[in-house]
């Protein structure tokens, strides 16, 4: 690390700790009264309190273990990738934490707890903490005493800490703001799908003409594109992920490395259904980047019977709805339960009834609308990633004093 600016000093973490305490080891119970925070509530340096287990504790225990705003919660023992995760407690109301978390009460005369928490969450600190951990088979452990002695942090004056934390908090606010918008936009898309794909809400210009009630097989047909086998060719193998997961690359293998020598070629705009996972929503439209990739013979490829009469993107969006996943169950023989295989029957699937917008123009407008939603969601996701990256950069500079903030 570069030299610290004047007025900053490197200190051991222990110097700013007033008190450390392990959490409660009581097991949670459904009728518990007091929320107990665990590892699952620490996410990306933040406390997430929408799904908290509950415990029953005595008044005496609550008095001893009740968390105070400004307490630092530190994950001392867990799987190696989770040990060292840290968040700041800032809720109001009664909360306790689980025993594998350590709660540090900080010297408020010396530090702004937000500053300390940001420091713990820098990439540099997380790496250092991983090194401090003693590792057993699937568990890693950081001894709080060692932590207080060995873990160090650069400390400016308290007023500078506050200024720095204020700035980083501003980015946190932006990040959570974009996250909320992203969630709302996703919900909005779901709502639009409910309305537009069922004809409950229609664009003005198309009102009047009734939707077409037909069999799926009236608008699409199954395609066969078997691969002429070549042991020396490198095949790019694709799969469709469950629950709207879309098409994904599995791996690339040479013909001689593949056991079942039966593949099919997929093309942009194919609608793919995995026979084995159909009931779990494994169906999707093939995007351009997978054009020419291969899938196993246990996929059905559907294409419009008449591309001028049916916009396949409609099927792509229908494939993201629970109704169509249920249709896959109806078209499967056997019993639907986790881990049990179903025999998906493509013919039966094509035989099931669907409602389709009557004209290509209406189909196109619906698909364009939903595509716009998808693009917006994608852009927001990129923006979120950029904001996070920007925050990381600011942390690197501000928490080490490389760039100084103006203090009042």
């Amino acid at each position, binding site marked *: 690390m570069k030299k610290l600016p004047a007025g900053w000093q490197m200190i051991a973490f222990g110097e700013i700790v007033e008190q450390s305490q392990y959490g409660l080891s009581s097991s949670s119970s459904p009728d518990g009264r007091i929320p107990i925070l665990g590892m699952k509530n620490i996410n990306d340096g933040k406390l997430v309190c929408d799904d908290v287990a509950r415990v029953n504790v005595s008044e005496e225990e609550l008095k001893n273990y009740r968390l105070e705003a400004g307490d630092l919660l530190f994950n001392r023992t867990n799987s190696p990738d989770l040990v060292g995760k840290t968040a700041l407690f800032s809720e109001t109301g009664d909360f306790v934490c689980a025993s594998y978390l350590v709660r540090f009460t900080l010297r408020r005369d010396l530090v702004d707890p937000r500053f300390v928490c940001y420091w713990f969450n820098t990439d540099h600190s997380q790496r250092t903490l991983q090194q401090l951990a003693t590792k057993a088979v699937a568990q890693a452990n950081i001894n709080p005493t060692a932590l207080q002695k060995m873990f160090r942090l650069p400390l400016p004056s308290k007023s500078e800490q506050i200024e720095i934390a204020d700035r980083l908090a501003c980015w946190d606010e932006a990040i959570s703001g974009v996250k*909320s918008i992203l969630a709302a936009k996703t919900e909005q898309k779901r709502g639009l799908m409910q309305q537009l794909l069922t004809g409950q809400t229609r664009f003005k210009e198309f009102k009047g003409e009734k939707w077409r009630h037909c069999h799926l097989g009236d608008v699409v047909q199954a395609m066969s594109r078997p691969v002429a086998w070549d042991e020396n060719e490198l095949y790019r193998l694709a799969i469709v992920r469950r629950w709207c997961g879309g098409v994904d690359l599995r791996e690339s293998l040479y013909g001689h490395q593949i056991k079942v020598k039966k593949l099919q070629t997929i093309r942009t705009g194919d609608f793919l259904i995995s026979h084995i996972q159909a009931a779990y929503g494994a169906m999707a439209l093939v995007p351009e980047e997978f054009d020419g990739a291969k899938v196993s013979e246990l996929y059905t490829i559907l294409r419009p019977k008449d591309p001028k009469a049916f916009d396949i993107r409609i099927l792509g969006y229908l494939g993201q709805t629970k109704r169509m996943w249920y249709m896959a169950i109806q078209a499967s023989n056997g019993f639907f339960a986790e881990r049990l295989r179903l025999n998906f029957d493509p013919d039966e699937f094509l035989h099931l009834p669907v409602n389709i917008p009557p004209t290509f123009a209406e189909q196109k407008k619906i698909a364009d609308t939903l595509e716009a939603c998808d693009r917006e969601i994608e852009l927001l996701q990129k923006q979120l990633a950029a904001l996070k990256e920007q925050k990381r950069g600011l942390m690197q500079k501000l928490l080490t004093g490389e760039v100084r903030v103006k203090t009042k």
Partner: protein
Amino acid sequence: MKKISQDEINDVAWKACDTFRGTIDPAQYKDYILVMLFLKYLSDVWKDKQEEYEKEFKGDKERVARRLARERFVLPAGCDYYTLYAKRNEANIGELINVALEQIEDANKAKLEGVFRNIDFNSEANLGQTKERNKRLKHLLEDFADERLDLRPSVVGKQDIIGNTYQYLIGRFASDAGKKGGEFYTPGEVSELLAKLLAPKSGNRICDPTSGSGSLLIQVGDQVSDGNFSLYGQEMNGSTWALCRMNMFLHHKDSARIEWGDTITNPKLIEKDALMKFDVVVANMPFSLDKWGAEGAEADKYHRFHRGVPPKSKGDYAFLCHMIETAVEGTGKVGAITPHGVLFRGGAEGRIRQALIEENLLEAVIGLPPGLFYGTGIPAVILIFNKGKKTKDVLFIDASREFVESTNQNKLGAEHIAKIVATYKAFKTVDKYAYRATPQEIAENDYNLNIPRYVDTFEPEKMVDLKAVQKEIETLEGELAGVRKQMAGYLKDLGV
């Protein structure tokens, strides 16, 4: 007096297994354990009676003996568990046990003949050479001396001891013995459901052609409130057949006729050269049995396979056809527990299925929850055939989602059983639960009976309030605009 629980009996039985473990196949040693349990039960009942009469006749030995001789069964002197236990250190203990069992059989010919035929306590092959064998038998006798194991009727009550212990042992060995032997024990509540669905009446003849330990048969019989019914069964596995006989005896079904042999290749319940007919036929058949005897089916003496010969590696329809052929014409009912495959498999099975539907024999298809059976998560269905159907429609019930969840094995609760039975009796469509299908609808589905094609259990998702979402987005955008302004200011200040 504290009643012994099934868990405690299971505990003793499991401990007794330790005595055998590692030497012989669990499929065999469970028989030794169950026979010993039966002997213990007989001895405890006998002791109970003896004490009762001694009290009544104030110790008059002769009168006590005379009275005991008129009991349901006779336990000859010296053949009881306690005498054998006292002799547990004798060098020929295996032989002593065999002799005792033989005498018990002789003294109760009508009821217990052949029951101990399959078991040899002096078997070197099963129990090892003399020294080892004696040690093992001594352990076995001692295991059953556990004082918790008091099986007197006054203590045990009406529990299905043999059946439950058999189920428990099969369950513990399910991975090997149970499946390999094609044996599936029907859990009590599934038997109860099937019994209530078939509702046998006074005077009915009831048959289970794959009776196993007989628990299903007993349950169905017990549905007849006045006790006027007769039970028939056939079981292929010799030792399971013996258990079934013991079980009938324990449940006072002394007149039950249980035959030993393969129901398909060698049906034993024959009357005047024809198959016996029954008012009610039930079975929890071996699922998709391989090598069930297809080679002889074409020339079957009883013409059971006139609708077609099921595939040789899947015996489900062979059992179904047998059951249907043995049901009384015009009124007989058949209830079978089968795997889901019978609903949709094609080929010969598809043709037989179509014929059964076209003959208007199929009455109901009931999908059961997964995990009801020991040792397998495979979900099952109940098929009900009725030779006296009043309608051409078929009722489909999807009961697969309603059960009591538990870690090892799911269960049907009393309310779930009641709902299925009531729905079957009402024979009406119930939203997301049951569907009354016409023969046309079934034909349109190509005679595929897969339940989701008929019972639509789709739960539509909650509708999104688009106006509220848009308002939220606008508020969030407004807030974010403020934050962005602040961020821009900070970045300018920092000069980065």
